């Protein structure tokens, strides 16, 4: 009882002094709502007030929050796996079998980890599509906004997510893992001049062996998650520095009377030092009661719904969807067909069709489809905010008319990737022959 201050809802004695141990999730006043943000470690990433428009389910679809929730879930489910999995070529497969069969809740934990990982690739990608289609990498009226940098960060985070998933792919040490990594790393080796060295560095030798396993393992459990965590924190910090979601810009743009003088009411720097460098957001748009709500409890509640909802969906799916585990890795037998992880299948599809022969000169398709083309796409994606010359009014607007052409091209590329991925997933059978999805593949013969 005495831990808490005399009354939970008492007014602070002095500015900055908060006699309450606990914050209120249901503040009675705007000041209490602000206090909740200021006195809670988890909430400190949130602003005190958020624009109503950027809270809408159908603007952002909360894809960023869901990605973060999935990342959090992956860390949580990864922790017990860290205790149970043995990263050695002799024991890895057996330890995964143990997780599947005899560890209590083991197969569920593995399924959570796997489904969340696949889900994260999908959701992070959708997040990127959303940001592009809403022109959310564009800056608005605030000073010091650099949304284009946050976009670049986002592209890097997508790549890290893919690499995280790819490094996790090898760990079960089954046929699926072994050959997906064989195909994947051989794409790297098709880079002229430095390719073989890159591959050798990646897999720690010329063949996929113990050295590869431990490299991928350390990348998967230490380096990449740490990196992604840092990038995530930076990503969130930039969102705050840029004045929230781009959707909020529309309120500012629409409602700002032309002659209103700029009033610096809020600075977003640590301790308020370097005043003037921070983005100065107009008080009117950001704090006006008609356009904003308190972050506590409205933003926190929706964030909780998105997070808990994600957990619930993944948890239930994991009861019913079993994780595959093929035969133990065997360097002598290539499975037919051998497929890369599904999110790389569009590349594998391109790799299949892009070996170029000019006279006696042959360019490996792996180089064109696996290095040049994705390299170009990622490069273009990275610099796109600087190429996008659409007016500021297109910021934070779904399918703005002024961005119609680029949105169409972007969607066509996305559609192309999706179609190729679908072909790779559902329509490629033994020897990479095309089959209709409903067509049965020839029976795979057995030993006995």
């Amino acid at each position: 009882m005495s831990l808490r201050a005399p009354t939970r809802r008492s007014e602070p004695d002095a500015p900055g002094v908060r006699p309450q141990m606990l914050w209120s999730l249901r503040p009675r006043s705007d000041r209490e709502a602000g206090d909740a943000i200021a006195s809670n470690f988890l909430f400190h990433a949130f602003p005190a007030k958020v624009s109503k428009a950027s809270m809408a389910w159908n603007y952002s679809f909360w894809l960023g929050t869901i990605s973060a929730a999935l990342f959090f879930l992956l860390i949580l489910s990864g922790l017990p796996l860290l205790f149970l999995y043995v990263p050695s070529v002799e024991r890895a497969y057996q330890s995964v079998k143990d997780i599947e069969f005899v560890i209590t809740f083991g197969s569920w934990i593995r399924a959570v980890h796997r489904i969340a990982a696949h889900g994260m690739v999908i959701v992070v990608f959708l997040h990127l599509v959303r940001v592009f289609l809403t022109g959310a990498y564009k800056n608005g009226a605030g000073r010091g906004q650099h949304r284009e940098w946050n976009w670049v960060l986002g592209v890097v985070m997508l790549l890290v997510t893919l690499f995280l998933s790819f490094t996790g792919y090898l760990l079960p040490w089954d046929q699926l893992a072994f050959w997906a990594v064989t195909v994947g790393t051989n794409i790297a080796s098709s880079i002229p001049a430095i390719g073989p060295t890159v591959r050798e560095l990646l897999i720690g030798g010329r063949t996929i062996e113990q050295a590869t396993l431990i490299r991928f393992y350390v990348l998967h459990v230490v380096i990449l998650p740490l990196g992604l965590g840092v990038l995530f924190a930076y990503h969130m910090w930039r969102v705050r520095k840029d004045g929230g979601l781009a959707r909020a810009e529309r309120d500012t743009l629409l409602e700002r009377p032309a002659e209103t003088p700029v009033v610096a009411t809020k600075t977003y720097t640590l301790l308020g030092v370097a005043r003037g460098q921070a983005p100065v957001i107009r008080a009117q748009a950001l704090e006006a009661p008609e356009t904003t709500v308190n972050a506590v409890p409205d933003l926190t509640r929706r964030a909780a719904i998105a997070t808990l909802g994600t957990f619930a969906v993944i948890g239930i799916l994991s009861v019913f969807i079993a994780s595959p585990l093929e035969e133990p890795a065997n360097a002598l037998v290539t499975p037919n067909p051998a497929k890369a992880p599904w999110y790389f299948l569009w590349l594998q599809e391109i790799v299949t069709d892009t070996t170029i022969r000019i006279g006696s000169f042959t360019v490996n398709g792996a180089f064109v489809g696996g290095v040049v083309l994705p390299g170009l796409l990622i490069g273009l994606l990275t610099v796109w905010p600087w190429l996008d010359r659409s007016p500021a009014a297109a910021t934070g607007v779904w399918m703005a008319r002024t961005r119609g052409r680029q949105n169409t091209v972007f969607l066509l590329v996305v559609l192309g990737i999706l179609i190729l991925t679908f072909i790779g997933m559902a329509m490629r059978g033994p020897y990479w022959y095309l089959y209709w999805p409903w067509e049965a593949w020839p029976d795979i013969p057995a030993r006995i």
Partner: protein
Amino acid sequence: MEKRTNSPFPAIDRPVMAVVGVVLVIGTGLFMWSDRAHDWRFYQMEFAQLVADQFGADKAAEVPTGMQQIWVADLERADRCTTCHLGVLWKGFEKAEHPYRTHPEAPLKTHPLEKFGCTSCHGGQGWAIDTAAAHGQVAHWEEPLLSRSLGESYTLAGDKNALMQMNCNTCHRYDRETNGATAINLAKRLVTDKGCRACHVINGYGGTIGPDLTEVGDKAPEQYDFSRLSGQRTAFAWHVAHLKDPRALAEGTIMPNFNFTTEQAQALSMLVLSWRRHDVPARYLAGAPRTDPRSAEELAAEEAMKTGPGRWFVDTGCFVCHSVSALGVKSPAQIGPDLSTAVEDTQSRFGLTVDAFLANPTGTMSVVLSRQIILTPEQKQVAVQKLREAFAEHQKQRAAGVTTAPAPSH
């Protein structure tokens, strides 16, 4: 009191939050259920009931519960079969249904569970604890249970249970005959009788006209040409059909048709498929030598030493350093003097009778007799008596002109 900004969100979001809460509760329920929903829990209950009915509640309490595992570190096999097949080692369930049936006793005598596990003979997936996965009838498991029903699916001509003999031959590969493996034995005789080695390398030697068959059992099923085979598309079915009529499956082959009967072709297919690369520890391989080879003469001499008149010196350990040539005992080390003349030797070297020397030994013998070979006074009496016998025998032989005792070495 300051005012709080009105918000439109709680009215929508709080019910959504409550729904998410309910879904989470459902999810947790499913999660708990997923752990309980395993066949083995039911089978363990059933078996305990079976034991209770037959032997009483006291015995039923001894039935183990929870997952069972036989871990054979040498073979890297973790077999959980006994989680359901609880009756394997219980007497009295010989006629019970599977999975409660008692395992026949004879094979387990020579192949104890703790040394072989289950799957090294029976096949199947030992890691699994659910029926389909454990019996290997799932994708991505290439070692199905070599059961009677699998044998029936191939309509084996002989013993329907014979497929299991393929696994016998993992260790018994170099046996000429393996007790109980009738199909494999038949096939091995056929390999010799029909001269397969004229064309094929088998177990390391043979002709090179046909392919090397030493590890043909590991050939991936996909590498067989099934285009002319109807029916089951398995390597086993291919070999049976190919052995019965080589030309029907492989066009232009020069392998003759031996007119094998179905039983012979099936037995040969089992043998052929059992020729795999296996990392079996040497002590599991039947017939692998585990000692230095010794000649017949050496063995006979050792036997004579153990059973002959010098037996006492061998049993006591004296022979390690001392020969007793008069009694036919030859020391492997010959560090000490021949004991045939010990009675004389102690006198000339130490100035003591044998009795006195043994009672108060000096030098090396004092160490040996206090540490390695500790003799009671009674045993020392025996020693003296035996040494006298040896000396008597020595003198007898010398008188007869046989010189067995070498000159004293020091």
